[in-house]
């Protein structure tokens, strides 16, 4: 990458990188959308679009939580396992223990939030690096899920359990999309206009400086992970409703997809700068690529490869632009 930059016009690339950050992503979204509609008659069908936006909602909500973690210079690799664990817990609550659905969802979201908070607490108080704690979390919560549910498949839920992932207003507008939009608006407000968002960004941007002015690092570290846990809880509810069946192998790979959505959306992987709107756009892009490959009948492993490349490029471009402008 760097070698090429030296040979070809590097100014053009800088400008490209900046354009990409400003709004290129939205342009890319439109282009991919147009491309897909031309390439496949299936893309614009109602069923496919609903499938697409439901997927966007799940990944987008997880990625919004991830945005807060990354804003505080962390990374949450446990999201997929937490989603799976929460979904299975919810399923067993209603099915095995006959806990009322509303209470079940509430409990599930609270448990997921607490798991996130515990991660944040361990990172802040014990000084274990973010990567280590959440990588451990990735294993631990998946481990618990398999321990408790093994190969069980729990299916057929009542309308409330299925509401978030299955209900459609006027028979076309999915409830998941409404939830995503509401979450996006609230998260944007928190990030931009509240003390909470400001201080999470501050500890991510410069920990020393923020501690010097009296910002409590542990508190905001914990809160950022709690937000991610909360998002995982909501996503688990949507996922459960969409599939109408849960099992231990749910939600694998969400860590990479959510991190990719965040950095594609223009947030800095190194904290201090974050855009919730961008993250949702990033999630939409990932979901469209996935959807396009699916309906195009392309071998699905290409999705993993493309996603990996996209992630590296999205981190490399701004980092490189920064190096260049710092000179």
């Amino acid at each position, binding site marked *: 990458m760097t070698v090429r930059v030296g040979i070809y016009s590097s100014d053009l690339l800088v400008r490209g990188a900046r354009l990409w950050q400003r709004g290129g992503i939205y342009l890319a979204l439109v282009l991919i959308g147009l491309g897909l509609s031309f390439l496949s008659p299936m893309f614009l069908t109602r069923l496919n679009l609903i499938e697409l936006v439901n997927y966007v909602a799940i990944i987008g909500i997880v990625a919004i939580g991830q945005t807060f973690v990354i804003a505080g210079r962390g990374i949450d690799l446990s999201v997929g396992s937490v989603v799976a664990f929460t979904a299975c817990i919810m399923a067993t609550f209603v099915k095995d223990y006959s806990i009322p659905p509303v209470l079940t969802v509430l409990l599930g979201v609270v448990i997921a939030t607490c798991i996130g908070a515990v991660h944040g607490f361990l990172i802040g108080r014990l000084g274990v690096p973010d990567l280590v704690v959440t990588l451990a979390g990735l294993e631990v919560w998946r481990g618990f899920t398999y321990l408790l549910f093994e190969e069980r498949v729990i299916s057929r839920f009542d309308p409330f359990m299925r509401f978030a992932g299955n209900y459609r207003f006027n028979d076309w507008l999915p409830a998941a999309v409404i939830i995503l939009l509401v979450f996006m608006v609230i998260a944007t407000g928190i990030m931009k*206009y*509240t*003390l*909470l968002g*400001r201080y999470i*960004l*501050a500890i991510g*941007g*410069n920990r*020393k*400086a*923020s501690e*010097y*002015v*009296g*910002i409590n690092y542990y508190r905001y570290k914990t809160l950022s992970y709690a937000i991610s846990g909360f998002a995982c809880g909501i996503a688990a509810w949507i996922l459960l409703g969409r599939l109408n069946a849960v099992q231990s192998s749910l939600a694998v790979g969400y860590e990479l997809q959510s991190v990719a959505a965040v950095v594609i959306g223009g947030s*800095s992987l190194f*904290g*201090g*700068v974050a855009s919730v709107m961008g993250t949702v756009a990033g999630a939409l892009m990932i979901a469209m690529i996935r959807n396009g490959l699916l309906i195009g009948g392309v071998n699905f492993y290409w999705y993993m490869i493309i996603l990996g490349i996209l992630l590296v490029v999205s981190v490399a471009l701004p980092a490189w632009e*920064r190096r260049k*402008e*710092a000179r």
Partner: protein
Amino acid sequence: MDPIISMRGIVKHFGGVTALDHVDLDILPGEVHALVGDNGAGKSTLIKILSGVYTPDAGEIRVDGQLVKFSSPRQTRRLGIEVIYQDLALVEDFDAVSNLFLGKERRIMLGSQTLPILNQSLMYRQALQIFERVRIKIPNVRQRIFYMSGGQRQGVAIGRALNSDNPIRLLIMDEPTAALGVEETSKVLDLIRHLKTQGVTILMISHNLEDVFAVSDRITALKTGRWTATVRTAETTKEEVVSYIVGAKTQRPESVNF
């Protein structure tokens, strides 16, 4: 004139290293006091003791004649002592306004209730006033620190120190001109002179004797943790100060009218 700050017999050890060995320092109201000395002389350690980052192993500190014991930077800030560390401690991803108000954000009021919501427009207006007061030219206060020059960053750091809820008594600056070019250095020195006319007392650390002679009223020199001299800038020469710094010459403490 009674000193606002009076440090006596300050001792600080780090393991086997004696960073400060019975150091005395008085700071008079309204003066610009320069602290000089070679690398490792103990300058930063002395101001960290004054700002509450370290506690001294021996010695006493008086503020306005009152014996004080500092245990945290928050405490000293409450007494109106603000420190600008060498690395400035700014959040580079934030703009000037956000840095100016970091940790003391203005918030929206609802009746008598303070909400945890930022009052952006109030902070913006107050920021312009503060920058006006300290005469720092920042073309765009909404620009991120990352894109600012060293002098502008120093300006933002000074602005933040002055944007205190408590009236500022003493501004401590650790090498304010170290990273700056000629033009920016002269701007920061101008700023120090300007603050002095506004009645702000300043303690500055510097390795650059040009700068020290350009703005200071008095100079204190340290040599490997020991006090060697406190002199009036107007009554000394660079050569003499150099000999205090290298330890070729020392004053006798009793000869000094601190």
